């Protein structure tokens, strides 16, 4: 008689641990002020490479503000002042010598509302490449196809690349914006509420895309939707009034948070 075989289930036991990860961005004692009002308070965290990290928290907690620090979008607001350090692969993002345009090529961003340019689908995707003076038709064609495939849009638009991007549905437009963002092959992709303007099916399509994209990019996502954070992210950070309350792997945060404040927020007992 054959012997007894042990259970083979291992896949769900290999829990993620931040200390085992390669780090893409390190935030050190980061403070941000809008005039005299402090919006981010002494934030320190390490954001792992090729993972999806979600930022959750109530409106005004500072999650979008923090996200916009990673590619210095807050520079566009006059009253903003910052303290501390943000390192992108050990390079100081806020150094005087940092070329902000180059930084934004390395750290791409997709916004809440799809914002395609009133141009063709093809031109939208290769817009960033043209800014980099890439003219080679073959390179452009290949990159557009790669980015649209990456954004899971290629099959839907491959026969109408010359159509105006505004003719696409909301969900397709948002995936086009993601294609445009990844076409320049950034290291990090910032997603600020990327599905809040989309229907549930398009939302799931974008979430699935996020899961696939992390193989090539480090993804940071801000979302109001806790369930979305639970579905798509590997790590989750819960913020409240400018503080980083709890930051850990998503499994732990959603099944056994360490702090009562986090538990109250994710279980809808807040306030």
């Amino acid at each position, binding site marked *: 008689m054959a012997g*007894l075989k042990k259970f083979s*289930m291992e896949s769900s036991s290999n829990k993620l641990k931040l200390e085992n990860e390669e780090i893409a961005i390190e935030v050190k004692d980061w403070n941000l002020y809008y005039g005299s009002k402090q919006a981010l308070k002494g934030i320190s965290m390490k954001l792992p490479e090729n993972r999806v990290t979600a930022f959750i928290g109530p409106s005004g907690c500072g999650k979008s503000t923090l996200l916009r620090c990673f590619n210095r979008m807050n520079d566009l607001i006059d009253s903003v002042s910052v303290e501390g350090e943000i390192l992108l692969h050990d390079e100081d993002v806020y150094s005087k010598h940092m070329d902000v345009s180059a930084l934004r090529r390395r750290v791409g961003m997709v916004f809440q509302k799809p914002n395609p340019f009133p141009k063709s689908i093809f031109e939208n995707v290769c817009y960033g490449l043209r800014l980099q003076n890439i003219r080679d038709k073959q390179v452009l064609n290949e990159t557009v196809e790669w980015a649209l495939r990456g954004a899971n849009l290629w099959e839907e638009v491959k026969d109408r690349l010359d159509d105006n991007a505004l003719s696409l549905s909301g969900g397709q437009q948002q995936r086009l914006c993601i294609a445009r963002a990844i076409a320049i092959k950034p290291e990090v992709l910032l997603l600020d509420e990327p599905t809040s303007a989309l229907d549930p099916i398009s939302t*799931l*399509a974008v979430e699935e895309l996020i899961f696939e994209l992390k193989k090539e990019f480090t993804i940071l996502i801000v979302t109001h939707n806790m369930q979305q954070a639970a579905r798509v992210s590997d790590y989750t950070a819960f913020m409240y009034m400018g503080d980083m309350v709890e930051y850990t792997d998503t*499994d732990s945060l*959603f099944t056994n948070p360490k702090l009562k404040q986090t538990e109250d927020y994710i279980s809808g007992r807040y306030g």
Partner: protein
Amino acid sequence: MQKKEFSSHISNQLNRNLEELFNHILEMGGMVENQLDMALSALGNSDIKIAKEVVRFDKSINQAEMEIDRLCIRVLARQQPTASDLRLILATIRIAIDLERMGDEICKLAKLVIKFHKNEPCVCANYAGYAELVDITTRSREMLKTTLNAFARVSAEDAMSILDQEEVVDNVYAKACKDVTEQFKKNPENVECLLEVMTALRASERLSDHALNIMESIIYLVQGKDVRNMDQERLTKFLEKL
């Protein structure tokens, strides 16, 4: 619902997790089947070595239940399954509990062999109820096989046959209990051994109960109907309509 529905979500992650859960139940079920086969072999051959292995193996079955629970919790917390997916999670949790308890009952059978084996055939084998013990255990083994096949096919078609087999087991068990009770009276000096046989008989009968529970979970999964605690007549009518 059909098995292919587990892999038809937009979210591949959810597809993978549901498929994973499904396969884990089949794997755990296979483990319990093997454990039961070995317990039957230990009973039939009074083999203490196999019986000890059966008892040791129970740890792995307990572990499997805990791992399946962990995955269910993760899927519930992170993917918010609904409709048939949610039923799969609930059915999976219940089936894992029943399989784990089957493992415990199988251990009781193996312990009977360990307790009475003295480098010679188990003395209990000569007493009333022992033949029925092997009979009930064999029938329960068949019931488990039928339910696991039903789970693999995501089909409640065989539910009726499980119900019939359960009735046979109940009758054999009732007769065996009667015989053992008679023996208590006739041979009170064998009380220790007879009590052990009684305990093992109860364990083997519980195996068939758990197999029936698993079938009820499969009906819930497939039909969305909770048939637990339904009286025999209503349940039969419901199953005939399937």
